């Protein structure tokens, strides 16, 4: 009974325009097991699970559920097939009660349109006690702790007769005690025969709760293993075992004097006691898992988050950077992770976006000198080979790579000397990627210092002169380009 296979995904392939996200992935799930899905950021874990939960459609391959091939059309359909997902962001309505949330969208009623409140709370109490929980179903969800909200999600899934439960980083926001409670619940679920797919970066959890583990790497399945008999280092090796290709045209520049020094920096955003230096002409790579505090570091340096203690020195002098405007005046430029929501003003033109940080340069007494602006813009469009029909084209119509080049030009135009790149090549095609790397080389050759935050380990290794690894808001380690290897960085990021 324990070995009965409930689900088989065979030869799953998923392509997005220009990218193969999953290629020939096999995945098998058995009744009553906790199956860990392991892999780096972007290895394809979420994509695979989104296919299973109906959020994405596979491009090729087959899904076999209880021995019969099945097309999962949409999330609703997945639920009726007994597949439920608990995302990191819960799908709960804060101002409704626990019971109302559990039965949202399928409220019991006797009269059409009138909800039978009593039935809701009775059913909810039963669903909760099935999980060994004593939560009051009349309590509002917003009054619950995160861990309790998660339990409501689990109860909701079970009341939908879920046989397969997908949990995406379920312990990310829990305390140690709450994790114990969660694991107790998971064991209850196992005993009931529910199969659980468990996505987590935390190695120690894997050994505590997992039965089998499937490792994904770059959209391919590396293999499925019994957790017993595996070691942490073995798993890490499986996650990263790749060759550095010549994708990265790194040219080492002369390392100049120090431009930025950070000492004992802590912020409300979650940074704790961060110290490092940055020199002219170098690329400082910042690695770490999602939520390790990398973007928060960039935000603090750029004057966006309140600094609670510590000092930032620019060119040797201690400075207070209170706003992005101040940061820009110190020669800092920030290429945000999310171009569309933070980097660009989509309804404005290429020219207007490109000059947005340097309007002061192109104006006197508040009046724009449109000639100078035009000239500067066309110079950057030519230099960076931004493909656009005209300078007046709205940036919303450009491709991802060209949009990224517009943001880059914005900071070149503002004469930034310190560039912070947050995921510089996300959503950018291979050709534009290479161009962006070339540009980094050209920048460092002119003495610009670059902080490069990236979730792509290869990119970090390929382009950095030094690598900082962050974990839990702290600097967990520093490696020179020679010392840095995928295994070392990942081990450090995972806290092994």
């Amino acid at each position, binding site marked *: 009974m324990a070995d009965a296979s409930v689900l088989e995904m065979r030869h799953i392939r998923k392509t997005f325009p220009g990218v193969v996200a999953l290629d020939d992935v096999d995945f098998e799930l058995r009744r009553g097991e906790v199956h860990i899905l392991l892999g780096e950021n972007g290895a394809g874990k979420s994509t695979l699970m989104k296919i299973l939960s109906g959020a994405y459609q596979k491009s090729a391959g087959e899904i076999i559920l209880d021995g019969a091939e099945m097309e999962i059309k949409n999330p609703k359909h997945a639920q009726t097939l007994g597949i439920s997902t608990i995302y990191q962001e819960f799908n709960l309505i804060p101002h409704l009660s626990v019971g109302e949330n559990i039965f949202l969208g399928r409220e019991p009623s006797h009269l059409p349109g009138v909800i039978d409140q009593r039935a809701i709370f009775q059913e909810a109490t039963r669903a909760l006690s099935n999980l060994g929980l004593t939560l009051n179903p009349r309590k509002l969800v917003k009054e619950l702790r995160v861990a309790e909200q998660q339990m409501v999600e689990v109860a909701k899934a079970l009341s939908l007769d879920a046989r397969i439960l997908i949990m995406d980083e379920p312990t990310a926001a829990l305390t140690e005690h709450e994790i114990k409670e969660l694991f107790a619940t998971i064991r209850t679920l196992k005993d009931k025969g529910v199969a659980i797919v468990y996505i987590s970066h935390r190695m120690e959890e894997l050994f505590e709760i997992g039965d089998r583990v499937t490792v994904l790497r770059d959209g391919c399945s590396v293999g499925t293993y019994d957790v017993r008999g595996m070691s942490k280092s073995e798993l890490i090796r499986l996650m990263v075992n790749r060759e550095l290709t010549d994708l990265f045209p790194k040219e080492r520049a002369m390392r100049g004097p120090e431009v930025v020094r950070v000492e004992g920096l802590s912020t409300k955003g979650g940074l704790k006691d961060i110290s490092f230096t940055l020199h002219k002409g170098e690329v400082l790579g910042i690695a770490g898992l999602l939520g390790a505090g990398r973007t928060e570091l960039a935000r603090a340096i750029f004057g966006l988050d309140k600094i609670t203690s510590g000092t930032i020195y620019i060119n040797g002098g201690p400075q207070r950077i209170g706003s992005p405007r101040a940061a820009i005046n110190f020669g800092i430029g920030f290429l945000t992770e999310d171009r569309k929501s933070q980097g660009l003003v989509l309804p404005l033109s290429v020219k207007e976006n490109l000059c947005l940080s340097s*309007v002061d340069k192109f104006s006197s007494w508040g009046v724009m000198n449109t000639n100078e602006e035009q000239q500067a813009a066309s110079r950057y469009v030519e230099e960076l080979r931004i493909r656009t029909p005209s300078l007046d084209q709205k940036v919303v119509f450009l491709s991802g790579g060209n949009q990224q080049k517009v943001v880059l030009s914005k900071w070149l135009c503002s004469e930034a000397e310190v560039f912070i790149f947050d995921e510089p090549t996300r959503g950018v095609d291979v050709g534009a990627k290479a161009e962006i790397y070339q540009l980094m080389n050209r920048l460092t050759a002119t003495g610009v210092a670059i902080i490069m935050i990236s979730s792509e380990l290869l990119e970090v290794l390929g382009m950095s002169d030094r690598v900082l690894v962050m974990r839990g808001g702290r600097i967990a380690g520093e490696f020179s380009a020679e010392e840095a290897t995928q295994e070392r960085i990942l081990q450090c990021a995972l806290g092994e």
Partner: protein
Amino acid sequence: MCLRGIALRQNFFSHYGRQLSTLAGLLGLSLVLWALTPHFLTVSNLLNVAEQATIIAIVAVGMTFVIITAGIDLSVGSVLAFAGVVMASALHQGVPLPVALLVGLGIGLLCGLVNGLLITIGRLPPFIATLGMMSVARGTALMFTEGRPVSGFSEGFRSLATGEVLHVPTPVIIMIAVYAVAHFVLKRTKLGRYTYAIGGNEEAALLSGINVKLYKTMVYGLAGMLGGLAAILLTARLNSAQPIAGMNYELDAIAATVIGGTSLLGGEGTVMGTLIGALIMAVLRNGLNLLGVSSFIQQIVIGSVIIVAVLIDMALKRRGK
């Protein structure tokens, strides 16, 4: 070269296409009225229409700036009344004309700046901040005058509304000047550029080093000050400042702005479009009056025109994408 020609043509339409279609609407409407009544297309009637349009058109300039920043200003009609009665009382107290005019503009500016500060420093949604100001300014105007109009001014002051330059009424000249300056400000100055940037993506604007709070406050201040200017012209025309003046002007101004193609989502819009929008509303009212349509039915027609204009606008934009 050929590519460049195409790009230029694309630009011409992406920049002016929207205004051309609104203008076509205005001309079409005028043609219909011309066919229906001989009184419409006379110089004196057209000047009359332009003069009728001035007050709303001037208020709508400020509204356009505010809406481009993705905001809204519901207070401007009440601010107009408040500025008007204070200025009128100043005139009655014997304050010199230029000073009284500055008082009118200043009261408008002040109310606008308070709106701006409530929105930026106080982080109130623009709808709420200006809704509150709408009531406060109206109440203050009523309290200040004990509900009575302040009437009777010197010839010099009234000539602001009754005077003519080359047979064109002074208010129309002032309106044209306001639009010329506003167009220049939006297209050619830092304030204009930042207005679009803030409305298009406030976060990106902040991250590009723009002092978002300062420029937003300035835009609301500008809207208030234009309310003050409208108060001067209205008071001069009526020879009376009423504490209940300017009721619902904010709604007419929003309608003119939206008919003129400015998106309530912010980031796009032009004052020239707004001028055409304001003229469409004035032509419509004038035409319906000439045709003897009852004022009840007029409201129905004008409301329908607003809805249809925006439906057409949205359809055109969807096709553009």
